[in-house]
Each structure stands twice: as structure tokens, then as C-alpha cells.
């Protein structure tokens, strides 16, 4: 039976008693808890990708430089050969001219 003087404060204390969240609340919270970037799958993938880029890019740059150096060396060799051939041709031509002049002189 309701008392004549309804003690609303006492009843409020009873009504607002502590309540617990659902049973899987803790598991949900643990799942949502922030994890360090490097511990997350995405973080690990990003770190691996960074490492690959970090290792491959310098290797690629070095390879390109070596290729350029080889191209330069080849071009230099070809130039030397061309100059050598040109030198020989000039030498032969000069010798031929000298021979002809000598012949005329001897006549």
C-alpha cells in the first residue's frame, strides 16, 4: 500500500539503482579499443610497403645510374673507334698523296 507521505527521494534511490550493460559489452569494448598502428593489420601492411619502397627505390636508382654509365662507356668506346678509323683513313690518304708527289718528283 502506498504510504500517506510518499517519500519520492527514497523511491528515486531505489528506482535509479545501478544497472549493468549487456554481457558482451566488455568484448565489444576490447574490440573497439585503440591498438597501436604497427600492431594493426593495416599498419603492418603499410610498414611492409614502406620498407619495400625504401629498399626498392634506391636499388632502382642505382641500377639506372649503372645503366647510364654503361651507355656512356659504350658511346665513348664507339667514338674512340670512330676516331681511330678516321685517323687510319687520314693516314692512308696522306701516305697515298705523299707517294704520288714523290712519283711526280722522280719523273
Amino acid at each position: 500500500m502506498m504510504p500517506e507521505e510518499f517519500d519520492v527521494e527514497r523511491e528515486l534511490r531505489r528506482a535509479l539503482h545501478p544497472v549493468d550493460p549487456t554481457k558482451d559489452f566488455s568484448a565489444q569494448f576490447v574490440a573497439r579499443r585503440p591498438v597501436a598502428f604497427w600492431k594493426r593489420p593495416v599498419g603492418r601492411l603499410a610498414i611492409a610497403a614502406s620498407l619495400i619502397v625504401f629498399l626498392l627505390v634506391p636499388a632502382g636508382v642505382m641500377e639506372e645510374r649503372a645503366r647510364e654509365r654503361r651507355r656512356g662507356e659504350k658511346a665513348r668506346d664507339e667514338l674512340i673507334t670512330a676516331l681511330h678509323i678516321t685517323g687510319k683513313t687520314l693516314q692512308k690518304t696522306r701516305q697515298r698523296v705523299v707517294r704520288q708527289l714523290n712519283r711526280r718528283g722522280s719523273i
Partner: protein
Amino acid sequence: MVFSLAYHFLQDRPLAEDITQDVFLQLYREADTFDSERHVRYWLRKVTSHRSIDAARKRKLRPRLTLEEIREPAGQEEFRDPMLSETLRKMVAGLPETPRMIVVLRYQEEMDPSEIAEMLNMPLATVKSHLHRSLTLLRGKMQRKKELVR
């Protein structure tokens, strides 16, 4: 404490759980900034109160149940069973946000009006006034129910 506060204020279990998770995530991130257990408790109550009020305002929860819509206890014996508490909880849920949070903090958390005033950044007189009006309203409603039962 955190879940109870949000739940009694919002009367919405999933939303109260979301708020509880958010509050604990924030606590987890700011764990280094607390210097005592009392500080943590104060911080938890304050953040939960403000987040619950914000959530209620955003989702416009207040009109979910008006005092007139609350079902009356069926008989005299029922004033001693859980129906009374349920009715009272629903009445509290029908209060506007600020007095509702004050009532929950006062009667669930057993906080003094001065502590509530500090936590909610409002004058002590305002807190006392909200408390007084809420209690009068709730008492009046319960008295009317009693008369109807007779």
C-alpha cells in the same frame, strides 16, 4: 556508474552502451592525465553527463514519453513491487534534459547539489531549483495516482 548514468538518463540501452564505450575509449586515451582515483571518477561522471545530454538533444529523445503517457500502477500492492520503480524511472525519463540529469546525479550517484552545480557548470541555486521542481512534480504525479487508485 558510467553505464547506469547514461542508461537512467536516456532509457535507451544501446545508446547508453555506445556512450559508455566512447567514454572509456576517451579515458583510455587520456589515462596519463589523471592523478587520482577521485579525479577519474569526477571525470567519468562529467564526461558521461555531458555526452548523455548531447545525445539526448541530438536524437530528441525527450518526447519519447510524457508524464501523461505513463501507465499507472494497477493496484495498491504494486507500490511495493518493481512496477513502482519502473513507473518512477519512466517519469524521470519524461523530465527535460537538465533536471533529468540533475535527478540522476543526485539519486543514483548520491552527489551533492554543489558537486552537481560544479560538474554541469551552473549556479547552485539553479540546481536546487531544478531538484525542488522535479521532486514536486514527481511527488504530485505519484499522489494523483494514489488518489486514482482509491
